[in-house]
């Protein structure tokens, strides 16, 4: 019963998502694409933060490296081939992740946060201070990569709708992949490591290996998001690697709810839409240019009422209802 309900819900959702381009303007389609890219990005971080307990404040580095990778290696006069650009971008991100991850994982907790930040800042300054990627001005990607076999163009994502579907597919694949991963033994081990690493080692798990693999996978997926981002706007800038960007995606994960995959997606949707909402002159008039204020207050309010993030809301309500039915007793 529950399963059928879910399946129907899913189908309706899917139909809605697929028909979106027919009624949304190209701007809103773009907005949805952006949300999906951030959702993918947040998902990749959720694997680290929520699932493995590796709070990284340097995740934007991998996003940015992949974005720069496609942009720098795409030909200027025609579309590049996604068949190697996408894996290449992922590999570039993963390569940096292997090196920095192996080092950063020697530390724990807040120190890990800061070391990841440090490595991200290093990457940031490479693009910011050298001419490699056009310096602070950034560089353009003139043509979205396409899938090409020999001379046969299998998929061209130039069209906004195609790009939309392509992004959606990437998001869903990533989501499904992570969901499977977390249900597998590997995922269970990650959960164990998050909760109590000492015990996992005592049981016989080489936790370092697990963490490193999770880290590299997460960073590779961030690379996918970076690839899509570069393809979406065709413009990359060092600010893509800035710590503010890492902070933003971390906020998405926290707001959405840690440890639950769909929390990351919810967080990305919520944070992006809130920004959009408060910046809307149509709704807020002149006050829209003071959107930082409303946005900030909204975040504070959300933290206040959602101790477990958006994804924890149903559980929270359930608990509330239950504890109402019996007389309440709260631990302090």
């Amino acid at each position, binding site marked *: 019963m529950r399963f059928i309900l879910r399946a129907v819900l899913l189908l309706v959702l899917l139909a809605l998502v697929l028909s979106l381009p027919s009624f949304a303007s190209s701007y809103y389609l773009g907005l949805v694409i952006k949300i999906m890219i951030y959702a993918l990005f947040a998902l990749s971080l959720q694997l680290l933060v929520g699932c493995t307990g590796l709070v990284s404040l340097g995740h934007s580095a991998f996003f940015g490296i992949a974005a720069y990778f496609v942009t720098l290696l795409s030909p200027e006069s025609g579309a590049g081939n996604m068949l190697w650009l996408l894996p290449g971008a992922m590999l570039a991100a993963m390569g940096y992740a292997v090196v920095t991850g192996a080092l950063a994982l020697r530390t724990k907790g807040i120190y890990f946060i800061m070391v990841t930040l440090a490595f991200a800042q290093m990457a940031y300054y490479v693009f910011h201070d050298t001419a490699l990627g056009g310096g602070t001005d950034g560089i353009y990607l003139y043509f979205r990569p396409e899938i090409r076999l020999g001379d046969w163009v299998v998929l061209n994502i130039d069209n906004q709708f195609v790009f939309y579907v392509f992004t959606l597919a990437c998001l869903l694949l990533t989501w499904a992949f992570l969901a*499977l991963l977390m249900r597998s033994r590997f995922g269970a081990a990650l959960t164990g490591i998050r909760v109590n690493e000492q015990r*996992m080692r005592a049981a016989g798990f080489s936790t370092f290996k697990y963490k490193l693999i999770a880290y590299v996978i997460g960073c590779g997926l961030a690379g996918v998001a970076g690839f899509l981002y570069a393809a979406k706007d065709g413009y990359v800038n060092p600010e893509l690697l800035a710590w503010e960007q890492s902070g933003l995606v971390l906020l998405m994960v926290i707001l959405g709810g840690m440890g639950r995959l769909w929390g990351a997606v919810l967080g990305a949707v919520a944070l992006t839409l809130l920004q959009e909402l408060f910046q809307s002159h149509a709704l807020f008039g002149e006050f829209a240019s003071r959107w930082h204020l409303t946005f900030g207050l909204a975040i504070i309010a959300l933290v206040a009422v959602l101790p477990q993030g958006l994804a924890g809301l149903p559980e929270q309500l359930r608990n509330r209802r239950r504890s109402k039915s019996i007389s309440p007793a709260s631990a302090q």
Partner: protein
Amino acid sequence: MTQTLLSAQHITRRFGGLTAIDNVSLELKRGAVHAVIGTNGAGKSTLVSVLSGELAPNEGTIHMNQQNITDWPQPRRARAGLGRSYQRTTIFPSLTVHENCRLTAQANHQHFWSWTPTSRCLKSNEAADRALELAGLSGFGDQIAGLLSHGGKRQLEIAMSLSTHPSVLLLDEPLAGMGSEETDRMLNLLASLKSEHAILLVEHDMDAVFRISDEITVMVNGAVIAHGDPASIKANPLVQTAYLGDDE
């Protein structure tokens, strides 16, 4: 059958200026419970950590099944059959009791690219069930581990150590916080495990120690002051003044 599974020679471990373990040697044999007792701060927990690979010794070597494992990291030793429990409870409070054990049991089935959901991993489910049963927690499988009472958590701690089918068990005060009933059950369990395992038992409960152990090592201030069978230890005046006291 007395086969030596684990032997440690001349282990020394220092923390800064403090020598927590001072030239300690001991052997763990299949079929025997080897108790390590000693004053508080004698270095017993440190010894367990050194044997299990959590801490590196400053000096000395450790052999397991005739292999030199001194340089092996802890997970590798664990996979080779070395299990330990902790003096301070280290469980996964957010998971259920059964999941706790299943998770540790999976250490024996780490196939990276196996994608079956954990809940359907038969072998580890079985191992978990068995371990819970042994530790006397079979009815509690679905309870959230963090909500167990202190004693319950201690039992779970043991169950988790057992779930990986270790051949050598290092138990750091497994009876602490357990009621008499559970203590009894635990001792019976140890007695039944003895035939297949080599067991190192760190414990302050002297009744239990003298009841179950075959061999006792007494440590004071990092050094071994006595070693022998329970009767001789009980009679040893040195041990009495340093550790046992003149209990009624």
